[in-house]
Structures are given as structure tokens and as C-alpha cells.
């Protein structure tokens, strides 16, 4: 498979690694000092900040410099923890990602459940440095830790009739306080066509920057589909179901002419209220110009084939 060389990145856009490491130390120190109570309740389980052992590199990673840990973990769209970008980090402590079980059922021969610690043990974890393009026209580069979604799906033996995969996030207003308000139709739901889900670029993430996934980034397990807008990459998954019909997805249900089922990154199809031709790179600085958005977020060579013959203007 051909791996596209990423666009060059200017030195000014790169965050000095020493800088983000310092910030992480600071973040961790403040967590430790302020989080005595939290620690007490999570002794045995692995938690955000803990290193994931045995993570291998992947040829699918981009060579672009990752966005700083601080930016990745303080600028989040995770409406269950608050609808402004800073809220999920502030409300992250409500979410209890251990213990955690994911139920897999629907059109498959071996339905069942799998725990998060089991997932970390059974599936070899890789680092996947991916571009993330939000539908709001900003972008990051995130060094995820995870494994191919296909590997997990195969374990449950999908039947030939399975055409789609439906994902559901946790519904628990105790852990996700904003679910008390009907901003979206909770729980958050997403879906992929089965061939999209089986694509090697499509992963389930368990961590970032080599460590257990922080709660605000969708702990303990989230989808990452790097060629689609960020909202497809559903967080804090509790259920996966093989279906024969295209599943309902949260944003397209709320506003079908703004958010489609496919949601492939496409500079040629604008969001009705804003342009998708270019995006802002988070961390690039106050005067950095926007960068042109690439079809399929720069992963066209790997994934465009999935959509041969499909009208991407209509199936946005």
C-alpha cells in the first residue's frame, strides 16, 4: 500500500517537545495534588497518564509533528462533558472509565462482551499519528495509541448479512452531567459501513502520547477514523452492533443537511454555514494562515477506493 508523504510543516508550527513535556509535568502534578480523592477510588485500574506498555510504531503514522499534549487535552468537543471546548477537561473527573465493558452484538455469530483491560491485553497496541480534521474547520495531529477496529470486529464473527457497524456511547448522567440537558439525542450514536470499519486506517484508540486515554478524549475506548470529520470518531463506546441497515447517527439526526452519514473530509462540499476549503491548525500560532483541506483529510490514496462510484456531493 502506498503511504502518502504529508505536506511539509514549517518550523514555526512545531511545538518544542520540551515545552509540552513541562506542561504535562505541571498537569500531572496538579492532578496528583488535587486528586487525592480520585486516586483513592481508582487504585487498581489503569488511569490517564499511565504509560501503555509495548506500543509499536506504525507505517500509517504521519510524519507531521503532533499537536501539544496540552492542546489535545484542553480543546475538546465532547458534549456529554460540556459544550464549550474547555468544559470536557474541567468535567473529566465525572467519567469513570474503569471498570468498563463493551457489548458487541447484532448480525454476528459470536456476540458477547469484552472488558477494557482485556482489550489492552489481547490486541497489540500501536502508535498511530493521525491528522484529525474537525467539521468546525480546525485540525490537530494526534499520536493515538490503539489497534485496528477490524481486529476486534472479526473476533465476534460478523455474518455475511452485516453491512454496517453501529456504535453507542455511554449513557449515564452521573458520569456525563450534560446528558441531563437535551442538547443532543443521548446517547451519542455513530456508524460506519462495514468495509469502512474494516479498513486498516480505522482504529479504536486506548491512549494518546503513549499513555492511557485522558477522560476528555473519550476514555476508555474511542473510535478514530482519520479521513472523516471528527464527530464520526465516537467516544467512550459501550456498545457495538452489526446491522443490515444504515444506522442512525447523532449529528445527522439533529441536522441532516449539515452532517451526513459519511462525513468524509471534503473541501469541495461546504458545511451550509461555513467553508470546508481550509482549516486552522491548532497550535500553529496567531498569525499562521489557514491550511488548505485535503480530500479525505490527506488519506485519499488509501481510502478513496471505498467510495468508487458514490456521489460524494450527495453522500456528504
Amino acid at each position, binding site marked *: 500500500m502506498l503511504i502518502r508523504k504529508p505536506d511539509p510543516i514549517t518550523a514555526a508550527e512545531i511545538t518544542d517537545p520540551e515545552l509540552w513535556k513541562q506542561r504535562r509535568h505541571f498537569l500531572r502534578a496538579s492532578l496528583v495534588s488535587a486528586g487525592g480523592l480520585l486516586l483513592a477510588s481508582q487504585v487498581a485500574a489503569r488511569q490517564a497518564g499511565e504509560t501503555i506498555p509495548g506500543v509499536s510504531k506504525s507505517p500509517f503514522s504521519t510524519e507531521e509533528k503532533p499537536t501539544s499534549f496540552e492542546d489535545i487535552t484542553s480543546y475538546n468537543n465532547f458534549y456529554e462533558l460540556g459544550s464549550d471546548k474547555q468544559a470536557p477537561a474541567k468535567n473529566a473527573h465525572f467519567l469513570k472509565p474503569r471498570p468498563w465493558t463493551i457489548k458487541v452484538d447484532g448480525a454476528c455469530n459470536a456476540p458477547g462482551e469484552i472488558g477494557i483491560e482485556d482489550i489492552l491485553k489481547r490486541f497489540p497496541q500501536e502508535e498511530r499519528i493521525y491528522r484529525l480534521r474537525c467539521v468546525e474547520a480546525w485540525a490537530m495531529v494526534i499520536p493515538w495509541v490503539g489497534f485496528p477496529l477490524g481486529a476486534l470486529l472479526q473476533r465476534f464473527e460478523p455474518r455475511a448479512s452485516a453491512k454496517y457497524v453501529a456504535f453507542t456511547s455511554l449513557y449515564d448522567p452521573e458520569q456525563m452531567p450534560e446528558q441531563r440537558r437535551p*442538547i443532543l439525542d443521548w446517547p451519542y450514536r455513530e456508524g460506519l459501513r462495514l468495509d469502512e470499519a474494516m479498513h486498516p486506517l480505522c482504529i479504536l484508540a486506548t491512549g494518546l502520547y503513549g499513555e492511557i486515554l485522558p477522560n476528555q478524549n473519550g476514555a476508555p475506548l474511542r473510535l478514530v477514523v482519520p479521513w472523516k470529520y471528527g464527530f464520526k470518531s465516537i467516544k467512550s463506546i459501550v456498545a457495538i452492533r452489526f446491522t443490515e441497515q444504515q444506522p442512525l447517527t447523532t449529528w445527522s439526526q439533529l441536522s441532516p443537511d449539515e452532517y451526513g452519514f459519511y462525513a468524509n473530509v471534503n473541501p469541495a462540499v461546504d458545511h451550509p*454555514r461555513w*467553508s470546508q476549503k481550509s482549516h486552522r491548525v491548532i497550535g500553529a500560532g496567531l498569525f499562521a494562515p489557514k491550511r488548505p483541506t485535503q480530500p479525505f483529510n490527506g488519506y485519499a490514496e488509501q481510502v478513496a477506493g471505498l467510495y468508487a462510484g458514490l456521489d460524494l456531493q450527495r453522500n456528504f
Partner: protein
Amino acid sequence: MERLLIRIAKPLVFGLALTPFFWLLWRLWTQDLGANPIEELSHRSGDWALRMLLLTLTVTPLRLVTGWVGVMRFRRMLGLFAFFYALLHALVWLLLDQGLNWEAILEDLAKRPYIMLGFSALVLMLPLALTSTRGLMRRLGRRWQTLHRLVYAIAILGVLHYLWLVKADIREPLIYALVLMLLLGVRLWPKVRTAWRAWNPALFPQGVEISSKRP
């Protein structure tokens, strides 16, 4: 006494109205604007433009309710601060967000209704800011008042601009919309009452109707 109050209160209000601006500058200087500083500058300047606009529209109802005429002396200042923050908001968009990419700017203006609304609000504010001097106020007389009624349209455009750009959680823009409706409603209420009485006089005793007549 009234004079002294104004002499102290005016610089105080002026300073308070500038605080958000200096706070933004300070956060910019200390790199405390978060992961997306341009968005933060844009959102906060927009917030303050709307807040100043709504405060400006609160002055007249406040006079009616409290009977304190002195409050009118703050109206122009607050209105000009609304213009100041709206201009700042537009400059953040033009210079930082769009990087003076005129092609993108014109396309956004033509294709995005919420940008069009915000931009029209700013353009309409310009003549009000320019005719806000005491001299022009006197010279324009009644026409000044007619012209400055544009502020109602500006406020409606501004609130719609905010409402239209939000993705799903419309709580905050709705609060602005409710406050605006209240402020406009207060102004319309006497007219509505008069019209209703004229339409259905039987409901009201004669004496009350006469005494409630407005000059």
C-alpha cells in the same frame, strides 16, 4: 450632588467597559487564550459587543423605571463601546481568522448568512457612531432620533448572527435573545396597551383610559 456622581461614575463606567479589552490583551500577552487563541479572541470580543449593545438598550427602560434621568448620560458611551467591541470582533475575523484573504472573505460574506448578518450590524453601527457627537445630535434634531432607531435593527441582527452560528447548544445565544426581546418589549408595551384599548374600549373604565393617554 448629581454632577459629582456623574463626574465619578463616568470614568468608572468607562474603565469598567474597557476591562474586558485589557483582560483579552493580558491573556494574549501571557499566552493564556487556550488552544485556539483566534477563536477565543473572536468569541470574547463578539460577546462583549453584544453585551454592550444590550446594556445600551437598557438605559432608556432604566430611566423609565427609576425616573433617574442621569442614567441617560451613559448611553452614548455604552453605544460607542458596543461599536468598539464589534469593530474588534470584525478585525479579529478579517486579520487573524481570514488573514486578509479577500477571496475567502468575500465568499464568506456572500455565502454565509450568519456572517452577512454580523457584517450588516457592524455597517449599520457606523453612521450611529459617526453621528454620536453632541454637535451633530443637535444639528440633526428629530432626524437624529430616527436614525438612531437603527440600534434596534442592529441588536436583532447581532443576536441572530450569534444564534445562527451555534451548532447545537443554543442556551447562551437564547439568553441574549430573551434579554433583547424583553428590552424591546418594554418599549413596545405602552403602544400595545394603547392600541388594545382603542380596539376594545369596553374592557376599560373611561377614567383610566384617559389618564393613561401618552403625550
